[in-house]
């Protein structure tokens, strides 16, 4: 791992960022629909969602690829961020809902007399935006503190994170939580006064997602270059040696876990206004495992891999669920198995892997020629 960012990486990164943030939305806004270069509103919305999922993948890679912790509950933090913003969006529907009431529709439906107290501050955007950060962060802090303190690691940690998201999923399905039960939140109208149905709003959300993705990338990239990043990788490779060298490995892991949770939470908050719905099925253990697939397919331990994995697998999913819905799970499961077994470093590592294989063949040939 190089400790400096090479010029090539800098240039490539800047070009990619420019393309994502400026060129694609520009093509959507300023080219006529008939033009071959035109990016449709539908595509902008779809790719905005993919970028949000890519943000989760970057956070997850920080955990898995760089610290060796597999979290099977990453979509829980994603959903928590989504719910935090969703509450604000629900309150901003105002009297435009089905029941023409100040309360969100599901509260009218369930017979709430007035807005529950913990909902009131979410009417303010700033509060909601802060909640997007601190709610997932706090949950991750509590869980991570308990887990790392008692040195739960490896597969046990993975299973416990899965149990965590499973429990949360069960909890969010209940109406008593005042968060909409199994229907969750939907039917949003405005964000910061802008109509969500307006293509310009969706374009802005796309741009925001792209900026967030690049910010997450830059943060993680920076982190890996610092001394912190070195300790992080040392924890991944041999935690005991790190402990014996006098580092509090638990603190490092806790920091990374919380950071990844916050990154996921922000992604969730950006995702919800673009899909227009958030419900507890987003917390089902299988969703978090899907996030693992993106990272595995893209290539963990590199930051660009997960982004490519998230974008690639999700485009494949969009296509396959349309073209052959019955066979999509077979495809996803099969792809995943093959990647895990035969290409542990993902698509990004595939070149190296093939190169190494060829190298070995060649050296075998030269060393003992066929008799």
């Amino acid at each position, binding site marked *: 791992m190089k400790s400096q960012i090479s010029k090539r990486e800098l240039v490539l990164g800047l070009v990619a960022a420019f393309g994502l943030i400026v060129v694609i939305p520009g093509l959507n806004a300023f080219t006529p629909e008939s033009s071959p270069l035109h990016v449709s509103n539908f595509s902008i919305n779809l790719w905005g969602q993919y970028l949000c999922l890519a943000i989760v993948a970057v956070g997850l890679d920080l955990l898995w690829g760089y610290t060796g912790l597999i979290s099977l509950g990453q979509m829980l933090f994603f959903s928590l961020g989504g719910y935090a913003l969703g509450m604000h969006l629900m309150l901003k529907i105002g009297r435009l809902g089905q029941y023409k009431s100040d309360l969100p529709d599901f509260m009218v439906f369930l017979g709430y007399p007035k807005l529950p107290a913990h909902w009131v501050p979410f009417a303010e955007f700033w509060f909601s935006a802060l909640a997007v950060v601190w709610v997932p962060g706090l949950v991750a802090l509590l869980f991570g503190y308990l887990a790392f303190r008692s040195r739960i690691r490896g597969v046990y940690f993975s299973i416990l994170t899965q149990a965590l998201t499973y429990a949360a999923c069960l909890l969010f399905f209940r109406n008593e939580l005042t968060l909409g039960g199994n229907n969750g939140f939907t039917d949003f109208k405005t964000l910061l006064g802008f109509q969500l149905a307006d293509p310009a709003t969706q374009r802005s959300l796309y741009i925001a997602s792209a900026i967030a993705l690049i910010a997450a990338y830059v943060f993680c990239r920076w982190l890996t270059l610092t001394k912190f990043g070195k300790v992080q990788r040392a924890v991944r490779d041999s935690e005991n040696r790190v402990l014996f060298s006098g580092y509090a490995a638990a603190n490092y892991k806790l920091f990374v876990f919380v950071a990844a949770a916050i990154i996921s939470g922000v992604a969730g908050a950006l995702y919800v206004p673009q899909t227009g719905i958030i419900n507890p099925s987003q917390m089902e*253990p299988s969703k978090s495992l899907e996030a693992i697939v993106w990272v595995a397919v893209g290539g963990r331990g590199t930051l660009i891999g997960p982004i490519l994995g998230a974008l690639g697998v999700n485009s494949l999913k969009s296509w396959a669920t349309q073209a052959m819905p019955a066979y999509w799970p*077979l495809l996803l499961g099969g792809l995943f198995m093959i990647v895990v077994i035969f290409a542990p470093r993902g698509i990004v590592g595939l070149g190296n892997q093939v190169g190494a294989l060829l190298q070995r063949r060649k050296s075998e040939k030269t060393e003992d020629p066929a008799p």
Partner: protein
Amino acid sequence: MEGVGVLFARPLLCFCGFINEMRNSSVSVILRFLAVVFLATGTSAPAMDQYEQRARALFVEAVVAPESSQSLLLENLVGSAHPCLEPFLQGWQREQIFIYQSPEGSKIPILKVEENQSVRILRVDTGEELKEASGSLAAWNPEWKAVETNSKIRRSLKNTIDLLALGSSSPSDRAAAALKLGLKQSPASLPVLESRLSQETNPSAKAAFLDAIALVSLNSENPDQRTSALQRLGESASLPARDAIKRLADDSTQPPQVSRAAREALQTIDTRIFWIDFFGTVFRGISLGSVLLIVALGLAITFGLMGVINMAHGEIMIVGGYATFVVQCVFGNGLAFAPFGLSMNIPGFGFDPSSAIYQSYFLVALPVAFLSAAATGYVLERGVIRFLYRRPLESLLATWGASLVMQQLFRLIFGPANVPVASPEWINGSLNVEGVLMNYNRLFVIVFAAAVVFGTSLLLTKTPLGLLIRAVMQDRSMAGCMGVPTTKVNTLTFSFGCGLAGLAGAFLSQIGNIGPGTGQTYIVDAFMVVVLGGVGSLTGTVLSALGIGTLDQILQTTLRNPVIGKVLVLAGLIVFLQFKPSGLFSAKSRNLEES
């Protein structure tokens, strides 16, 4: 053949109905008495004893009587009710009793029985089919008039039918009927109950009759009788009597000794209810724990002993469930299904669902489930897991991929809906121990789990294969150096663990649903059991499965909210692992990576 007495009695009864119409009740009573005497002395009917004759005669009398006195006459059947009357009483409830005017001019009540397409006409007085004078069976005449009912008569009919159960041949039916009667607390039923009690031989039915009599006596005028009835009910801690006793305890007009006795009886009953609820919850907890245990046992082998996280464990379990379904279909009429759009047909043996062979399909299904799941496990181990023994985290991911594939295969083969698996009749029903109801299928799962655990521990500790398994578990490379064929042992162990999962699936099919996603609902719980129990310990698995099952049930009953209970169990587990990070029972090891 008709008895001579009956021949005489019939016109007499008709006459008495006629007199009744004139509201001359004293004459009617005498005539009725005469009719009964005639009936009682008529002895020539071979298949009919005197009780039955008397009951039929009284019923005939009630039918032909004018409407105003019918319910009174029905009440008179109390005490002489005979089981032979049941179809006729029920027929009257449905207004299927008609009056047939015989050519001689007498009124004969008949019951119309519609069977499939044909109509049978039964005489109430003999229970035989109605015949013309020529001896051939009479044809149905739509002009015959039905005997009408009103609400009072229907009530009397219902009472009489309830009473009939007092004479039922099954002791538990008799006991239930006695309690039902007792709960009505009508003094009129006291003589019947007492006369039945004197004939009763079955101890539990006897106790029920005593309880019923005590219940009726709670309304007695005499405070001493009320007190002794309360003491009796307190001693037997009769649950159905609780409401009646509570009324007495709350009634401030009662004399002090009665209310004291009522309070004492109430307390005894409440204590009993508490214990029944408690043991019921513990029983359900243990049976839930046993389900978890069978599910988790396979996992304890593959995860605990081999360190392989098999996320497809739930799906392998469901392979066992589907195998049970297929065996059931083959025993029945076969199975038609359409995997991948192809239509396939597995022919069945076509046994009748009530036949003993069909009922025993489950015994065949158990080994089939074990073998099919073990075969699936074999393929999974050879195809996926053997590449990943050194990368446990990745075996978790790859097996998740496998579980996704398997779920979709189930969906494509068996359809997205749950498949219906019928339980054999012999595990339906329940055992009542001192008021605690134990379902046979729950008892069965407990016994089954115990047998499976016992068998597994024998296999691991007493067989050469078990020795090899344990050697490989402790140190794979060292075992390899000593000449243990580790890859073979791995495959066998994994297949065995999967076979156990298949057994769990076969059992689940008896108490729950089998569908493509069923495995997912059990997998998290099963992992919890293994993690809590301590990896690699069968004792730990048993204790933690029973513990989690019981705790889950207790929380569910006290909180009345299954989700909060589940969340609390998960939270409790995380807190527990703070103190014992490697579970209840963990193998002591100096290896840093394993600690």
